Structure formats: structure tokens, C-alpha cells
């Protein structure tokens, strides 16, 4: 296509066809003020601040919506432009409250900057009083719509980017304002407090509440969010040594201008008053504050003593999927070279081992290999056993955008109704743990109905015959057949899966069953395994013949493991059967825990090392796409804390075998040199699945199936994010979803207090009667504001992957207190 040449402020410039005047001007370094324009949003030309003049004919044009045309003579600064721009700004200011001096938007307010830039001076128009109530109830966002300039950025952010649809215009003319359905406060609407609109609002009309008394940020540092496996690029706004605002990075990243409520609350955790500010040592039964020197010395002495008495195999290390790639690498080396054992594992196994096993045995890559843009461009998407609304919000945004704005078809496979249900073209609700059979049925339909290029499949893959033979035992219902047709005929199809698939017995087989579908139809570049914690993918390493994390617990009970270093993990909450884990850990002769908080596990440690948050260190996380997100130091380590990598180096030194690194960059370099690129190897292999139907093992005593689900407001092992005062304020109760039929049988009403029990533990929760789960099942979040659903589970290991099966178990349910 021919470039188009125009004159811009007297200079000949050219751009691509379809480009707007604003885009070209920006490319040429010419500044045009804007209020309603954002590169991530559809331009609407609402504010007219971006006026320019076409001096050919005197037309005043909104540059953000006007495409360039050959021969245009554009001036961005003509006298007429200036006069009009000033008038527009003055009109806006005339209906704006006089609160600039005390407004927390402060120097980040675009309206204020534009007003100064165009030199407004006196306002001249009669002021229009415009009193709008200030909304104050939820802990995340406050709105003062008297400051709204009707740019509709929030509305577009909400509808186009995060596809929640919480807000749109209400009324028109002078009365117009962005409002929820029914004009109710945000907390009564569909709003998820993702903060995307907050970051976009050019004025102080929508603000996050956390920072109210801290003024405006004077500096920004780009880093990577630590609160789920999405690894959003975020920008930390700093004032002195405090993080006071968290916004999506302007540079894109996987989240492209969006965020979720967890990310916006990270500053609460970092600046929590509960942070450990010094190491602690157990002295006569009590943990007492200690110096770093003493604490490191005591830890090293403990390890040396146990090693001397019982040999190196009595030592073990558990690292965490919230530690960086560099820290995990250092811990590996520390364990092998300094402690002299192979007993190291990471909590990442609990979330990730199943996917690794399934992928390695089929398409031979260490993780799924597709990026979020690819997902959004798919024309058919299958979501199975995942609730990305809660577990991976930006994935949910991408799926909803694909469905709503690009016409993608969504096939949802989930026993529950989730936030994606209303977007789904087909919603199949299989029984728990039967996904492999359903997916096998779909594969059978694809083969039987010839929905594949069999010749290519035979040529390019291994074990097609094996797969075919294995499919005979499956049948497909009409919905599954329809889904198979959609999937097989797609130009570009994707499958997204999560813990609903992987945390059941035989999870790896379910994942294989869906990978088989992808291989059959040559869609292996559209596989998305959602991760739970920020570095599940990076922290997972193949076991080095040592024990896996949960096996270590058994080994402690047997007396084989006597001392342990736990970095960044809280096994008592994060592992199943909290009671048993706690008992085992307290048997240790020397337990050293490094954490930001005095967790349940730290409380029983002999040495507690106070570690720093992700904002206080450098390093990298690998997100679910396999994208490496960089951490940049935003603030110095909070008083008395040290980054984990630093702690590991100190421990090595105290053990008498210093490691050859001075800073974290040297570690990154060594990893890069070692690993190179994760690469594919050879043709894809089908993995026939030997499916065994789950038996209904509920019994009289424990008649309900408990299902653990993800919760937007308390994800992960909960240890860290539970220290956000805003998230806590919002969800301080444990809720259990109970199907209507069961509730009425047990005479349970909304708000009643109920007790859920298993042979290993019990907890109380508030009943939420729901029509979105099948009868006979109840659902609670895996991570609870007050602990973890793990108290109910026993340690059942998946045979193949040594991961835990903490998705479902049999429970009893009874009403304790009636709600009034």
C-alpha cells in the first residue's frame, strides 16, 4: 500500500493508510493534547481537545478519529486551534469542582495538565454546580463523578478491555454520568475492582482508595505482579520509600493495560504492618528477635549438626513458586553443593507437575508454548476445569474479548456455572473427574467422523494407531459431538485448562486426553495451562532423585529427614492435611523458614529469616505463557529484611562453602548459559489414556463431594495476599456454596453457619445457597481468608506425578447456627 504524505506543521511527513492524524503526529514526535484517547481503546472523538486544523479548507478535525489523507495541510497549533482548545477546556473546568489543590490525582491529572498546557487562565464561564455523591463503601475504588469530564474511557476500559460491563452512560446531556446498572454503588454491581478504569481516568473522578492519604506518586518503577501465574507487567508508583499506586504498565506485557484487584492491592502486602522486620531465633521455647549474624549462624550450625549426626540425606529443602527463577536456581545449587543432598522440591510441583508430565510425554515441551494474543485470535476456545475469572483474570479478559468482539465460539467444560457461562456457546457439565472420558469422546468423534487430515496425522505423528485403539471405549453425547465439530473445523483453536483438570486423580491423563485432541487437529500451538502462583512454571524442576515435597513429610514422620530449610512457602496452609503437616514439621531437629510474615510454619521454626517482597528485589518470574517477566527493585528492602537470594548466599557462606555470586545478575547469566532455549524435540506423540471412571465413594457419614475452587480475592497459598487489608476487609468470611436441593433438605438458608468435616479436619463457613453447582456437591475456595481448605484433605498422592489431589473429597455438612 502507498504511504500517504501530508504536511504537518509545515513539515512533509508520511504514514500508513488508515492511520489517524494523532497517531502520525505522535510517531513524528509532535505533541497533541488528548483526554479521551488511549491506544488500547476504540477512539470515539468525545472530548475534542485533540483538535487540529486542516489549513487547506479551514476544517477543525478531532485528530484522534480522523485518518490521514493525501494532501492534508495540518496545523496542530494554529490560532484557531488554540482558541477552540481553550474554550473546550474552560467549559470543562466550568463544571469541575474547585478541588484541584486537595485532589489526590494531583500531578497525574490529565485535565489539569492540559489546562496548564493550553494556558487557560481565567475560566470566564459561569460555574455550574454539580454535586454528586461520593461513593465510599468498598475498600478498593472511590468515585467522585463531579470530577468526570465524560470521556468514556472508564466505560470503554470496562466493556472493551475487561469485558465486565459494570458501567455505561446513564442519562444524557448535563445529567450524563458513567453508572452501574440501576445506578447502584460499584460493590453492588458486576464490578471486579480490577482497577483498569482507575488507571485510565484522566481526572480524579475514579480513584483507588488505598492511597488516599499519601498524595501522588513522584516516581514509577516497572516490574512484574506476583499474585498469580499471569505475570502482569505493572508499574509501581512511588512516593519516597512507599509504593502508593499500582497501575498497568504502559509498555504492554501480557495484560496490555489491564489489571486485577489482587495486583492493585500488592502495596498493602508490601507495606503491611505484619511484615517481619528482623530474623528470629527460638530460645527456651519462645521465638525471640535476633541479629542477622546470629540467625544465619544458628541456621548453618543446625544444618551442620544434623548433617554430621545423620548424614546429608537427613537434610531437605522446600522452595516456593513465589521465589524467582534465580532464587530457585540458587536453592538447587545450595542443596546439592552446600548441603550435599538431592532432597529439594518446590511447591510448584503441587500446581504444575501434572502439566509437565503430560506435555513431556506428548509434544515434548516443558510447558505450554502459546501466548495470550494467540488465544485472543482463536476462533474456537475450549475452557476445561478452569475458572479464569478468579484464577487468571487477564486470561478471562482475553477469552471474553475473543467471544464478544471477534466472534470466537466458546466451549465451556465445567460442572459449575462460572463467569464464562454466559459467554459460552456450548456448556458441557460433566461429573467430577470424568473429563478424560469426555475429551476421549470428542477425539473419537473427530476420528469417526473424519474431521481430521488422517494422512498428515499418520505421517507427522507417533502412535496414531495406539490412540485410535484406545478410543473405542468412549462415547460422545450430542453436545460433545457438536463441540468436536467446532473444534476440529476451527482455523485456530485453543484449549485453556486449570486445576479443575489437574488436581483430580489421574490429572495427567486428562491433560493428555486434551493434548491428543490438539495433535489430531494440528492445533498444538493453542494449549494454555493456567498456573496458580506467579512462578509455578519457572520454579518447577524435574526431581533430582530426591523426595518430592509431600514425600518429605512422610520421611520426616519416619525419622529419615531431620532438618529442613523452607523458603517462601507455608506448607501448613499450602499442603493438604494441615494438622499432619504441622505435626511432622514440629518433629524436626532444626527447621529454618524464610518468609515475609510469621506464618503458621514460621511459628514452629527454630530459625526465622525475614525476607523481602517482590518489589524489593531483582530477578525473573516465568508466567503461564512461558514469558519471562522481570522484577525491578522499586524500594529498598523493608527494614530488617533481605531478599531470599541474598539469604541463600549468606547461608552458603556460613556453611563454609560460599557460592560464586555477588549479585543476582550473575545468577541470571549462569542460568541463561545453562538452559538456552526450551526447544521442541521430534514429532508429537499421541498418549492413549487408560481412563478409569471415578467411583462414587461418598458414604453415609460423608455424603457430600467438596470441591475447592479459585477465588478472585484470595488466591494462591494465601500466605502473602492475605495480608492485604483491603482484600481482607472485602472478604473476611468463608463462604460455602450449597446446591438449592441439598440446602432445602438440610434446612439450610443463605447466611446460616455450617460445619464441614472430613476424617482429618473440619471448618465452619457461611452458607451461600446457589443454583450454579450440581446437587450433592458443595464448593469452597481453596484459599480462605482465615486459612485454607487444605485442613480437610489428607495427603493423597497422584501415583504418577506425586502431586496432591486437593480438588475434591467427601465431607459431611451440618447447620450450626441459623442466620436469624
Amino acid at each position, binding site marked *: 500500500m502507498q504511504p500517504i504524505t501530508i504536511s504537518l506543521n509545515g513539515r512533509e511527513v508520511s504514514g500508513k493508510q488508515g492511520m489517524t492524524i494523532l497517531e502520525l503526529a505522535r510517531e513524528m514526535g509532535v505533541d497533541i493534547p488528548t483526554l479521551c484517547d488511549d491506544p488500547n481503546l476504540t477512539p470515539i472523538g468525545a472530548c475534542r481537545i485533540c483538535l487540529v486544523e486542516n489549513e487547506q479548507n479551514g476544517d477543525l478535525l478531532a485528530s484522534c478519529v480522523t485518518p490521514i489523507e493525501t494532501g492534508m495541510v495540518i496545523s496542530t497549533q494554529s490560532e484557531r486551534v488554540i482558541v477552540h482548545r481553550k474554550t473546550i477546556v474552560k467549559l470543562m473546568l466550568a463544571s469541575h469542582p474547585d478541588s484541584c489543590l486537595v485532589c489526590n490525582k494531583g500531578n497525574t491529572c490529565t485535565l489539569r495538565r492540559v489546562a496548564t498546557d493550553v494556558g487557560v487562565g481565567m475560566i470566564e464561564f459561569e460555574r455550574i454546580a454539580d454535586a454528586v455523591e461520593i461513593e465510599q463503601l468498598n475498600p478498593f475504588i472511590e468515585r467522585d463523578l463531579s470530577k468526570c469530564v465524560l470521556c468514556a474511557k472508564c466505560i470503554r476500559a470496562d466493556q472493551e478491555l475487561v469485558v465486565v460491563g459494570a458501567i455505561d*452512560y446513564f*442519562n444524557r446531556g448535563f445529567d450524563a454520568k458513567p453508572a452501574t*446498572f440501576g445506578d447502584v454503588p460499584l460493590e453492588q454491581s458486576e464490578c471486579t475492582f480490577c482497577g483498569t478504569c482507575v488507571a485510565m481516568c484522566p481526572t480524579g473522578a475514579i480513584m483507588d482508595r488505598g492511597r488516599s492519604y499519601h498524595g501522588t506518586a513522584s516516581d514509577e518503577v516497572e516490574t512484574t505482579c506476583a499474585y498469580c501465574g499471569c505475570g502482569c507487567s505493572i508499574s509501581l508508583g512511588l512516593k519516597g520509600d512507599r509504593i502508593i499506586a499500582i497501575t498497568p504498565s504502559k509498555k504492554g506485557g501480557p495484560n496490555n493495560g489491564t489489571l486485577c484487584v489482587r495486583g492493585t492491592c500488592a502495596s498493602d502486602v508490601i507495606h503491611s504492618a505484619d511484615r517481619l522486620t528482623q530474623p528470629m531465633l527460638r530460645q527456651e521455647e519462645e521465638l525471640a528477635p535476633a541479629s542477622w549474624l546470629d540467625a544465619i549462624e544458628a541456621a548453618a550450625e543446625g544444618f551442620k549438626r544434623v548433617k554430621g549426626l545423620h548424614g546429608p540425606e537427613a537434610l531437605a529443602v522446600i522452595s516456593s513458586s513465589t521465589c524467582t527463577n534465580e532464587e530457585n536456581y540458587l536453592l538447587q545449587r545450595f542443596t546439592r553443593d552446600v548441603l550435599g543432598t538431592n532432597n529439594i522440591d518446590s511447591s510448584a510441583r503441587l500446581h504444575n507437575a501434572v502439566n509437565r508430565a503430560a506435555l513431556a510425554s506428548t509434544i515434548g515441551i516443558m510447558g505450554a508454548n502459546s501466548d495470550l494474543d494467540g488465544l485472543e485470535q482463536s476462533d474456537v476456545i475450549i475452557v476445561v476445569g478452569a475458572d479464569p475469572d478468579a484464577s487468571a483474570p487477564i486470561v478471562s479478559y482475553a477469552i471474553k474479548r475473543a467471544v464478544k468482539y471477534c466472534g470466537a465460539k466458546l466451549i465451556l467444560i465445567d460442572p459449575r456455572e462460572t463467569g464464562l457461562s*454466559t459467554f459460552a456457546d456450548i456448556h458441557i457439565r460433566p461429573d467430577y473427574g470424568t473429563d478424560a472420558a469426555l475429551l476421549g469422546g470428542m477425539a473419537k468423534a473427530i476420528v469417526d467422523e473424519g474431521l481430521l487430515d488422517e494422512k498428515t496425522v499418520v505421517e507427522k505423528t507417533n502412535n496414531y494407531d495406539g490412540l485410535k485403539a484406545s478410543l473405542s471405549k468412549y462415547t460422545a453425547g450430542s453436545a460433545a459431538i457438536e463441540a468436536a465439530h467446532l473444534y476440529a473445523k476451527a482455523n485456530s483453536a485453543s484449549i485453556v485448562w486449570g486445576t479443575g483438570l489437574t488436581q483430580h486423580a489421574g490429572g495427567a491423563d486428562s491433560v493428555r486426553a486434551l493434548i491428543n485432541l490438539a495433535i489430531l487437529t494440528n492445533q498444538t500451538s493453542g494449549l494454555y495451562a493456567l498456573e496458580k502462583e506467579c512462578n509455578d512454571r519457572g520454579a518447577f524442576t524435574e526431581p533430582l532423585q530426591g523426595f518430592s515435597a509431600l514425600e518429605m513429610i512422610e520421611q520426616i514422620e519416619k525419622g529419615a529427614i531431620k532438618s529442613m530449610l523452607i523458603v517462601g512457602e507455608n506448607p501448613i496452609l499450602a499442603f493438604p492435611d494441615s494438622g499432619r503437616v504441622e505435626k511432622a514439621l514440629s518433629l524436626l531437629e532444626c527447621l529454618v523458614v524464610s518468609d515475609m510474615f510469621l506464618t503458621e510454619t514460621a511459628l514452629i521454626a527454630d530459625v526465622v529469616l525475614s525476607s523481602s517482597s517482590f518489589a524489593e528485589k531483582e530477578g525473573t518470574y516465568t508466567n503461564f505463557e512461558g514469558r519471562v517477566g522481570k522484577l525491578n527493585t522499586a524500594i529498598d528492602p523493608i527494614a530488617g529484611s533481605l531478599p531470599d537470594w541474598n539469604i541463600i548466599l549468606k547461608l552458603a557462606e556460613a556453611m563454609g562453602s560460599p557460592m560464586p555470586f555477588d549479585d543476582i545478575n550473575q545468577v541470571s547469566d549462569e542460568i541463561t548459559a545453562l538452559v538456552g532455549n526450551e526447544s521442541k524435540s521430534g514429532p508429537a506423540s499421541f498418549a492413549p489414556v487408560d481412563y478409569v471412571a471415578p467411583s462414587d465413594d461418598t458414604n453415609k457419614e460423608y455424603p457430600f463431594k467438596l470441591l475447592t475452587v479459585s477465588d478472585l480475592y484470595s488466591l494462591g497459598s494465601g500466605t502473602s495476599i492475605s495480608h492485604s487489608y483491603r482484600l481482607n476487609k472485602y472478604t473476611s468470611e468463608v463462604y460455602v456454596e450449597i446446591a438449592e436441593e441439598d440446602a432445602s433438605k438440610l434446612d439450610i438458608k443463605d447466611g446460616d453457619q455450617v460445619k464441614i468435616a472430613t476424617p482429618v479436619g473440619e471448618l465452619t463457613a457461611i452458607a451461600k445457597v446457589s443454583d450454579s453447582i450440581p446437587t450433592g456437591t458443595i464448593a469452597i475456595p481453596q484459599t480462605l481468608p482465615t486459612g485454607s481448605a487444605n485442613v480437610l484433605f489428607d495427603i493423597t498422592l497422584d501415583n504418577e506425578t506425586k502431586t496432591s489431589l486437593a480438588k475434591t473429597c467427601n465431607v459431611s455438612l451440618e447447620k450450626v447456627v441459623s442466620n436469624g
Partner: protein
Amino acid sequence: MVNAPPVDINQIKKIINDYKDSQWPVMPMVEHIQDEIGYIPPQTIPMIAKAVGLFPSQVQSIVTFHDQLYTEPRGKNVVRVCRGTACHVRGGKAILKSIKGRLGLEDGQTSEDFEYTLETVSCMGMCAVAPNMTVGKNIYGNMNLSKVDKVFKKSEG
């Protein structure tokens, strides 16, 4: 205010169904609902939204953007009195006052029994026969106080 008359959800569902597959369904759909019910009951907006693939907030935005669409129940008879200049100088003011007294309503209000809604308009475009008023679709020109009596007797009887 007493509760609004119950809304026949099935009637609304039927209207939604009639329009939902047309190309630009929202406006004709909500206009038809208003014609039948007198207003667009807010509780039906989520149903409309679902049928047309929009968010409830978006449908609400469309409805509140148009002056002639209402989200509150209105009387069976909408009485409009002109207060344009021509009507005003030819006795419109007295007519409005009399109607307000007779119905016990102020401008914009609806009677408790949902019989009447009173509104004023700025000019009906029939200044030649001022003062003017309308009740529902009926137009009354050259009004005077005794004619007001007759109009209301008629619509009451």
C-alpha cells in the same frame, strides 16, 4: 406511593422474542415494551440485555439516553399540558393549575392508582388553537376551564 401494577413478564418475554433476531433489535424492542406496559420496567433490562448480547448497563444507557423512554411506571393516561408562550398567554397557566388541583399531581408525577401522569411540554406546534393539552393520543385545542371538566369526565366515565 403504592406499588406499581405487577408486570406481566411473559408478555415482555414474548416481545423480546419477537425482536431479538432482527438486526438492530434494541430500540424497536424497548419501544414496543413501553407501548404495551407504559414504561420499561428496570427488572426486565437484564432479560433484554441477555437476548441482544449486551450488558445490562449498556441497555440502561440506551434507555436513559432517550427522553421518550421511561423506566418508572406511568399512569394509564398521560396528560400533557402546553406551557409554550402562545398557550401560556391565552390561559394555559390557569388550565395547568386546575388540572394539578383536580389530579393532585405536580409536573412529572404519577397518581397512586397509576391512572394519570401529568407532564408539561414547551410547545405542541398548534399555537393557532392555543391553549392546548393532550390526554394519551387525544388532542384538545382551544381549551378553557369548563372544557377541562368535560375532558376529565369523559376519560373517567
